[in-house]
């Protein structure tokens, strides 16, 4: 019986692997035929496209493992990641060569480097620490990154004077490394909680809260009578429309606000049901909550599609200026990544709900994960420190002040303090296991707020990033 169970998925395993393999080959061939006509083959855009194909292949295989539990998928997913990384490295190198400076100057270039870093760390986690399923988390993030890049302007733009500094490159490189290490520690802490037998419904509450947070963030752009404010976009200039220096023009997409509000209620429903289940001690509410997650995914997909369609076409009015303006996906990268991230978070929960036993088999032991999480933070913390120091030094050379308490700086300091707190608790108070994992998760949330929230919600000097 056990034999049959093992053999049966293996058979379907080779089907998926060969399908993914053929798919990759087909897409690469099509892309090649398309490129041969236009001439230059190895540009960063083309290489990035190749990387995207491989990453999609890897993510498909990772998800395939999630659904069927076939171990050989993971091996091939790893090969696909290697191939994707090779193409991605080429893209980074080409960009660097063409621009003449390390690729950290624009959002496009930073995403390029970030995705590269993510792929490297994924392989490190797989090979060195044996966390084979990490790709299930990181590959979809990489895909979102590459897709976002397709929306942004890719031409090499000259650097404004303040950005022409080696220290800036040092600062941004360190930031990328540190944030990637923090992201990894977060994923590892989550896996620890899975191995530590944290009840699945707790994950339900957490994922639901995360999506509530995302939609709350999006709803800060809610405009009276159900509209949603997005930045206006000038298609010819390929840039946002500015009313005055650093102040973007916002246009209101009618009715989209209502939809977002509806979806916000939908993603809040599982959490409400979870609370109800706890209050009444009734398991039936949890079953309902799981159904609600499924429903919320459908609604989230609807929200994403509506958002895609409405931003691509149409002219919208603004409260701050006369006339109609167009917008674009590129004008709202944060809303887009929020929407995609929300779907992704809910999907991860469903994966856990359906495949917990397989995940537990594929993951290292709780004790190992706890230790690796700590080690990752031991890498992240000095990087954070150096990142802040390099940033301060650059600011001092450019503006004459090493610290001006602007929101990004302050939040970087807060991030640093949170991780310092983690280390003190671990070393002097012997915090291990769950408490440490929660602390690591908190740290990464602060990182996310520093990275996205500050740029999106708070004003400041870091207008470039």
């Amino acid at each position, binding site marked *: 019986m056990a034999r049959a169970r093992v053999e049966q998925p293996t058979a379907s395993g080779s089907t998926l692997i060969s399908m993914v393999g053929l798919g990759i080959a087909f897409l690469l061939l099509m892309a090649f035929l398309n490129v041969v006509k236009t001439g230059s083959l190895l540009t960063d855009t083309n290489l990035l496209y190749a990387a995207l194909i491989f990453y999609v292949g890897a993510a498909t295989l990772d998800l395939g493992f999630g659904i069927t539990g076939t171990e050989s998928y993971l091996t091939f997913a790893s090969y696909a990641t290697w191939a994707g990384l090779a193409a991605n490295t080429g893209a980074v190198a080409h960009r660097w060569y063409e621009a003449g400076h390390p690729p950290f100057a624009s959002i496009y270039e930073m995403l390029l480097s970030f995705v590269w870093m993510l792929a490297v760390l994924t392989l490190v986690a797989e090979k060195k620490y044996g966390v084979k399923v990490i790709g299930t988390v990181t590959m979809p993030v990489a895909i979102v990154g590459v897709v976002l890049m397709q929306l942004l302007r890719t031409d090499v*733009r*000259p*650097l*404004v*004077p*303040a950005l*022409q*500094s080696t*220290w800036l490159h040092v600062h941004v490189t360190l930031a990328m490394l540190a944030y990637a290490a923090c992201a990894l520690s977060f994923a590892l802490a989550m896996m620890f909680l899975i191995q530590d037998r944290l009840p699945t419904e707790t994950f339900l509450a957490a994922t639901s809260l995360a999506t509530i947070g995302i939609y709350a963030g999006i709803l800060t752009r809610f405009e009276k009578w159900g509209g949603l404010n997005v930045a206006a976009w000038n298609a010819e200039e390929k840039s946002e429309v500015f009313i005055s220096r650093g102040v973007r023009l916002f246009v209101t997409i009618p009715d989209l606000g209502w939809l977002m509000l509806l979806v916000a209620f939908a993603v809040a429903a599982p959490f409400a049901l979870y609370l109800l289940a706890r209050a009444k001690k009734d398991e039936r509410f949890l079953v309902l909550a799981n159904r609600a997650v499924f429903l919320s995914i459908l609604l989230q997909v609807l929200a994403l599609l509506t958002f895609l369609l409405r931003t691509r076409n149409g002219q919208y009015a603004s409260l701050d200026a006369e006339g109609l303006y167009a917008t674009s996906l590129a004008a709202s990268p944060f809303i887009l990544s929020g929407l995609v991230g929300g779907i992704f978070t809910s999907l991860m929960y469903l994966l856990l709900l359906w495949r917990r036993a397989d995940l537990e088999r594929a993951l290292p032991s709780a004790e190992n994960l706890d*230790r690796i999480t700590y080690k990752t933070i*031991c*890498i992240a*913390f*000095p990087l954070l*420190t*150096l990142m802040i*120091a390099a940033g*301060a*030094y*650059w600011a*001092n*050379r*450019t*503006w*004459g*002040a*090493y*610290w001006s*308490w*602007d*929101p990004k700086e*302050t*939040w970087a*300091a*807060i991030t640093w*303090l*949170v991780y*310092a*707190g983690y280390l*003190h*608790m671990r070393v*002097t*108070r012997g915090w291990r296991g769950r408490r440490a994992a929660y602390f690591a998760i908190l740290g990464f949330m602060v990182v996310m707020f520093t990275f996205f929230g*500050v740029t999106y919600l*708070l*004003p400041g000097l870091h207008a470039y990033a």
Partner: protein
Amino acid sequence: MAAGFGSIRHKAWQTLSSIKTGVVLLILVVIVSALGTIVLQRPVTEADELQRAYSPQMLRIFDALGLTDVFHSWWFVALLVLVSLSIVAASVDRFPNAWRFFARPYKYPDESFRKTLRSQVQVAVPDQETGLRAFERALERIGFSSQRVERDGRSSIFSERHRISVMAVYIVHASLLLIFLGGIIDAMWGWRGFMSLNQGQQSNQIEMHDGAHRALPFAIRCDSAGQERYADGTPKKWWSKLAVVRDGQDVERKEIVVNDPLVYKGVRFYQASYGTTDKVDQLLLTAMPADGQGQARELTLEPNQAETLDADTTVQLAEFIPDYVVRDGQVYTRSKDVQNPAVRLVVASKKSGKQLNYWIPAIEGIADNAASPYRFDPKDLKMGYFTGLEVSHEPGQWGVWAGAVLMGIGLTLVFYISHVRIWAVPVQDAAGRPALWVGGIANRNRDAFEAHFEELRGKLSEELKEQRKLRFEAKDREPEELLAIAAK
């Protein structure tokens, strides 16, 4: 009474030096600084924006609480000082123990300590001295130095590496204090201001951010300034050639660009802004004799400098109006923006001493253009430049940078270097045969240490095997040597 006071002092010290206090203070710093990023801050926000964002009552409450300028409020500074004191107290409280540990390493492990070690092993040896020697060689082979410890007439081995790692935490704390110290010095004695210089102008006056003025003991002169643009028009580089003037003499010169300031006596001058003034720098024009005979010639006029046209006639750029308007037969300046410029040239004749005003453009009723012996055609107008310099004096910044470097070193020591100690003590096994007990411990990265310890153990058994082989060989050789001696 005195005892009571003493106990209060003791309690206060205990509270201040406890980790709990430190953590509570840090959480407070986190909350307060987060608030400071959410509430709009006065120093970086326009007044009307604040009024738009908050109702007057709200604003009054925020102001009263200091929330509109968190990072400069006395209570925030007090909080940071408390954090520093807590770090100092915690370090002082724990330092003596750590120092004892550092200064007097524990070289001979007693039996109860030996039992607690996770990494330990006991191997059989032919005799105590052979065992110790074999272990010394094994240590050498994995790159550890060792020392013999003689105690009660018995020999044992102690080996360690990176003892400094024990003190690393204090290095990190000290670096943090150094950074704070630098910040406090800058907050007390540092200042920031702005200085705007026209080309060729010299000044020692600095406009402070709070509106006050400050005079420097030396002056700065801007010799020239300019900008370069990329092909698409975005600015590529702003530069200014500056000179430091002291007692009428140039003591230093430098061309500064955005990321590269001029530093003189601890005062830094940064390229902050750049633009054109309402003053003209050069006017390019062609002069053509009015009677149409002779060649047109190109002229470059600078303000108030006479240019000779022929033996009799000179021309001078007398007046420049960036944005002129004519009313009631008078020329007025409407604004300082170069929108509608007018130039008054004075054409003078030496012989007759007659002067006439030549206006470009020819303003009717005012200009004497018709009477001029020359006609002038404007070709190009080069406006004067000003350069905006951010000026700062941060005497404490060296503390900050030294602290940052020290922290980098400290953190490296904390995270990547572990204090490893290994002991070897001759013992006897249960049957009374000689054995060597070997044990070790690392203060962090224990997995790596365990792997190391295993390697050491392998090397030790290799060495012991080698010893045994040598012994057998010696035994074999002995009779032969004896025979050889006997043969002699």
